[in-house]
């Protein structure tokens, strides 16, 4: 079960690493080739591992939504870089705080992806 896998991997492989804060990043972006690559590249450049990623089209034509879960000290500069990308409309973050608490990442992502709070008039709001 993925639930255990997450907990186990953290315990087995990262026992000595200082526990960083877990963050969920939700971005609305242009639904076209290369957009997702631009987004993930911002993480790669900062040597951040993406623990979970999922992307779906939204009810707005040409807009897709991507949800990422990462562990990092501070996501503010990263979000600022994401917001600069031309293909990104909007970025929102949520703080998730480690294992065993609240929803686990994969479940959270599924829940976030299910949310359909987009305005019909095309205004990009999360």
């Amino acid at each position, binding site marked *: 079960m993925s639930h255990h896998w997450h907990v186990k991997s953290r315990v087995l492989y990262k026992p000595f690493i200082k526990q960083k804060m877990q963050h969920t990043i939700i971005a609305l972006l242009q639904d076209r080739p290369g957009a997702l690559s631009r987004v993930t590249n911002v993480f790669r450049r900062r040597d951040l591992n993406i623990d979970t990623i999922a992307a779906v089209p939204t009810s707005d034509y040409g807009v897709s939504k991507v949800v990422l879960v990462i562990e990092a000290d501070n996501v503010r500069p990263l979000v600022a870089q994401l917001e600069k990308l*031309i293909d990104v409309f909007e970025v929102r973050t949520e703080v998730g705080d480690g294992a065993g608490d609240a929803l686990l990442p994969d479940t959270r992502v599924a829940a976030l992806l299910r949310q359909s709070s987009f305005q019909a008039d095309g205004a990009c709001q999360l």
Partner: protein
Amino acid sequence: MPANQPDSSKTMTGAQILCEALIRNNVKVMFGIPGGTVMPFYHAMFEYRDKLRHVLCRHEQGAGHAAEGYARGTGNLAVCIGTSGPGATNLITPIADAWMDSTPLLAITGQVASTLIGTDAFQETDITGITLPITKHNYLIKKACDIPHVIQEAIYLATSGRTGPVHVDITKDAQQESCVPNWDFKLSCRVHRAGPSVAVEQIRHTVELLRSARRPLIMAGNGVIQAEACSELRRFVDATGIPVVTTLHGLGAFPEDHQLSLGMPGMHGWVHVNKAIQRCDVLLTIGARFDDRVTGKVSTFAPNAKVIHIDIDRAELNKLVPATVAIHADAREALFALNDVWDDGTGSDCNEQKCHHHDWLMEIRQLQSEHQPRQAYMRKAESGDLSPADVYAALNKAVNSGNRCRVVTDVGQHQMWAAQLIDWSVPRTHITSGGSGTMGFAVPAALGVAIAHPDETVWVICGDGGFQMTNQELITMKQENVRNVKVAIINNGYLGMVRQWQQLFEERRYSNTPLVNPDFCKLAESYDALGVRVDHRSQLEEVIDAASSHDGVVVIDFRVEREANVFPMVPQGNSIGRMLVDEGVDPTEELLVEPDMSAVV
């Protein structure tokens, strides 16, 4: 986009549409090299040659740097072109350079036919994948009908907000296919983002902080020049009496002969400038991004200061140095607002405020008079040898002689000496590769500057190492009849800056830094330039005067003292308050200027 569409009823090839789109966006000069996948573009270019000048360079890197020089010398967008594969990858260095220095650059590359993309076709490279992290945005065009709006979007992006490079990759079939171009479109909202507006509250807060400050300081960077805010800065400084330091790219943003100009900070900044930063209580930074070469160990930077940071790029705010007031704004608009608010609040207390800063300024000038004469190259014993300082004294005279001059420097010791020893006073007269530190930048960039400013003298100051990286562009000057470039090679037979580090930090192990050089005079002659060698101080003025008045490209080989160093120097990773001010002696207490932490106000 203007609604006049004289040709819109006509079917055009993608290549013709591309030329038309560039002309409609006021592009006048392009730098590039043709090749298989851009041949349709070059074929069409021939029809438009009266309106669209193409400069044929000898290497795409040269084309890219020439375009950068053109952009940096004018403030306008510049265009460089390469074919697919190696042509495109050769453009990577200038694109990265433009990215680091926020230079508005449009790089156009050819791409294999859309049917061949992803098949490892001949001269196919995933160039949009490569330029992705070093451009503001990039595009792959596969249809001719997309060209008009993509080119306009690309140019809008390159020249708006924080300017920078944008890359457009166009497949060969898109250039070849015909369609009726549609020039009637609007920029999509995702591209056309409104610029930041200045928040009045923040401006008021800034003015309050500056008014209550006892040791205020302004740091002006590239953003002041890019936003054409130099006269607003001058007005603000004159009104407030606050001293100004200018970063490497800010040189020229504020005249160095002004009594409130201090000079350049950072790794090779003057002692009094760095100490002023460490002692100031309010630091107003405008259009500068706290590069590590400016801040040294960033946690120790300006320890006593409340920082006010004005930048057009929101991602720069609070990135490295936490700001008490972080203002996301265009430098010019912010300075307008600052001037307005300052003027509103000033009455007769203005002079009092200035007097207040007078003590602070005197403190800094005192430091300057103590430390600047200790510079190694300011107190060299008399000898016949040519020291770099001698060359710069003569060059400074030539550059500031009243004739309009621009100076393009490369990267290394000569670059730092130029920044330190030439008096900069006019924006866009000091052009160098800063953030990226690209050796080989100067000669091709000077080509671009010279084409943009044919009536001015363009001095190249470069090292013997950097010169040999891109000197092939001298023949491009010949082909384009560029005659106003004068190259000063500060020739010490070493990769000098690396050698300096080896001397200071690696026990003089000169691993792979000595250079065996060609005869630069003969090399110059073969490029139809005048080559002159200078070995002795007494020849300096005569040669530089002759070079200035010579109608044609000149290459001067200045054979300088081989192991002269750039000082002061902050060893990498140190606080900018800890500076080596001389060589040859152990860095004892005497040589290390400690940060004055007691200076908390």
